């Protein structure tokens, strides 16, 4: 063993105080920033394990939205004749399934992540927010793969997105934040009430029908559009369709209401999660 003498860094060490949780919340952003490498490792592990465990690996990320798109195109499109802004049904559905599949997957992973990582949580400290964050970020790889398939479809149907495509990153960010906001709530709840994860699949199913995945939001009467926007995914999905295909109207009201909701969801979720953080190691 070459015991390399390490020089102890002496410059006035900041003192860390450990005490009972008091007051409402405080999120230590610096600490979170310092944990970015750990976030990277958690994401990297998630991705590695997922692709090691499923035989078809990356193909799964495409097959899922593709099959759903086929079913939707056939039943909602060809049979129920739902309007599609003049878009071919495959494009109409796939452009909505992209954010939806990402969202539902990320949400379910985020819900389970704290419970799955209970051994680590009870043995070592790190900012717990990294866990739901990693679940939400890891889903982006599947999203990217599914997005590749979308580009092929766009080429096939010869659809060129308009200037609205510039706003696409914003809608993607909104999707990530929605998954994070809801995921923060659910992962903390799931750690404390272990049956929450059985409720989540139903929640996701209902949520899908409350979002413009299988139909355009133009079916919702104008005066109720803002209520509809309270579901953040409504703004996200319409935003995806509009920015990717250039068809339809920019989802102005929807987007304004949805963005506000997302911010509230994330702020509330962070507050709840950090508040429960202290209790989580005692109950998991």
């Amino acid at each position, binding site marked *: 063993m070459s015991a390399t003498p*390490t020089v102890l860094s002496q410059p006035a060490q900041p003192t*860390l105080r450990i005490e009972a*949780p008091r007051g409402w919340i405080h999120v230590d952003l610096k600490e979170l920033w310092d944990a970015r490498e750990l976030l990277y490792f958690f994401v990297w592990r998630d991705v*590695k394990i997922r692709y090691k465990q499923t035989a078809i690996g990356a193909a799964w990320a495409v097959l899922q939205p593709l099959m759903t798109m086929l079913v939707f195109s056939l039943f909602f499109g060809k049979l129920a004749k739902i309007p599609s802004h003049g878009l071919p049904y495959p494009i109409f559905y796939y452009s909505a399934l992209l954010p939806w599949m990402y969202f539902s997957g990320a949400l379910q992973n985020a819900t389970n992540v704290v419970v799955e990582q209970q051994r680590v949580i009870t043995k070592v400290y790190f900012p717990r927010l990294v866990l739901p964050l990693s679940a939400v970020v890891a889903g982006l790889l599947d999203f990217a793969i599914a997005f590749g398939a979308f580009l092929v479809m766009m080429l096939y149907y010869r659809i060129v997105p308009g200037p609205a495509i510039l706003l696409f990153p914003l809608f993607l960010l909104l999707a990530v934040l929605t998954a994070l906001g809801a995921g923060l709530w659910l992962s903390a709840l799931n750690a404390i009430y272990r049956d929450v994860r059985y409720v989540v699949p139903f929640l996701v199913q209902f949520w899908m029908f409350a979002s413009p995945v299988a139909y355009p939001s133009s079916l919702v009467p104008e005066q109720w559009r803002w209520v509809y926007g309270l579901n953040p995914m409504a703004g996200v999905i319409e935003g995806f369709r509009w920015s990717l295909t250039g068809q339809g109207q920019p989802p102005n009201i929807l987007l304004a209401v949805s963005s506000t909701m997302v911010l509230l969801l994330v702020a509330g979720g962070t507050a709840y999660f950090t508040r429960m953080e202290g209790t989580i190691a005692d109950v998991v």
Partner: protein
Amino acid sequence: MSDVVIHVDSLGKRYRIGERERYLALRDVLTRAIKAPARFFTAAKSASPCNGNGYGNRSHIWALKDVSFDIRQGEVVGIIGRNGAGKSTLLKILARVTKPTRGHADIRGRMGTLLEVGTGFHPELSGRENVFLSGAILGMSKDEIRRKFDEIVDFAEVEKFIDTPLKHYSTGMQMRLAFAVAAHLEPEILLVDEVLSVGDIEFQKKCLGKMGDVAKSGRTILFVSHQMNQVRRLCDRAVWVDGGQIRQQGSVAPVLGAYEEAMSRGEVAVDQSRGARSSHQKASFRRWQIIEPQGDSQNLLFTLGPVVIQFSVEANRPISNARHGIALFNVDRQLMWAWEATGLDLGPGMHEFRFKFPVLPLRPGPYYWQVSLWDDIEQIDLWDCIPEMVIATEGYQHPSDEWNGILNVPCEFAALEGNRNEEVTISNF
């Protein structure tokens, strides 16, 4: 007092009874809320962690109360005490895994914690990938791990298998790799929980050596152990935790002396969490005792056998076709013996499970019983019995320490000479 790196001031940790009984189900909480809304809300209020209403509250357990001490830079401090005394709770608070209910602790310097060997390991990933993952979780940066990677693999002696998934490793190899990662953390303060008691003797020696190196390089170590010889070898100071409080602290020799004396007197500590177990569990173990030979101590054995041990179980509901598991561990958490009784039908009320052992040939020292009760599907109760069983018989062993085995077997030796009937016998008992 600028060189104090850990300052602990009247630290306390309270658990609500039932909180240790794992998680709740939302459906239970909802039904409770619907059945008795008023009680639900008052209960929710008293559960808030900031509502300190004194140590006397009966629905709470203080796993730790009023603990204060200072640790200076470069000190190696051993935390000793019996199982359930609060050592691990103390370490967990300092490691920030759980939060204290009262008091505070100030920590100066980068802290590394080693509460478990192999934190964050995943069986599907290769050894190499696990080194990075575990290292990151323990607080190392990617560059740091990359820099020390060869050294870690070298220490663990797993070069050949470094790209094989961990699930194909033997337990020993996994342990070596896990410890190697942790040993190469270079924090200024290191918290270590009983992890050196895993693995084979050779490896333990190697780890202990590494810890010694770390200590010599001027870093501060806080070290929980059951093995007094390890504490003696490594530590300058010892803190004895008993019943959630500090019983004694100071230089190693006097504290360990007092602790060992108390142990051999068979002082009995009560497992608080048992007496007050909540009644919504189907059944729970209440206490254990030595029935035979009868003595003045409940947990002290002066004989190799015959021995009768009794475990008391209280059933709240009838249980049919239950299984009862029993296991005996030594201080190193090595399994000495285990067994299972099946097909038990228990009515409500107290039950005594009695085990008669013609011999229990164990070397002197503390041992731990672990008992469990299962029905068809689930575990009803599992108890790491408190107090530990202390075997205080004579040692019938080789005179030098390194030849002392796990068993303590009296024997009679005879050397027979030619065809003469006369024998030369030596007996060790």
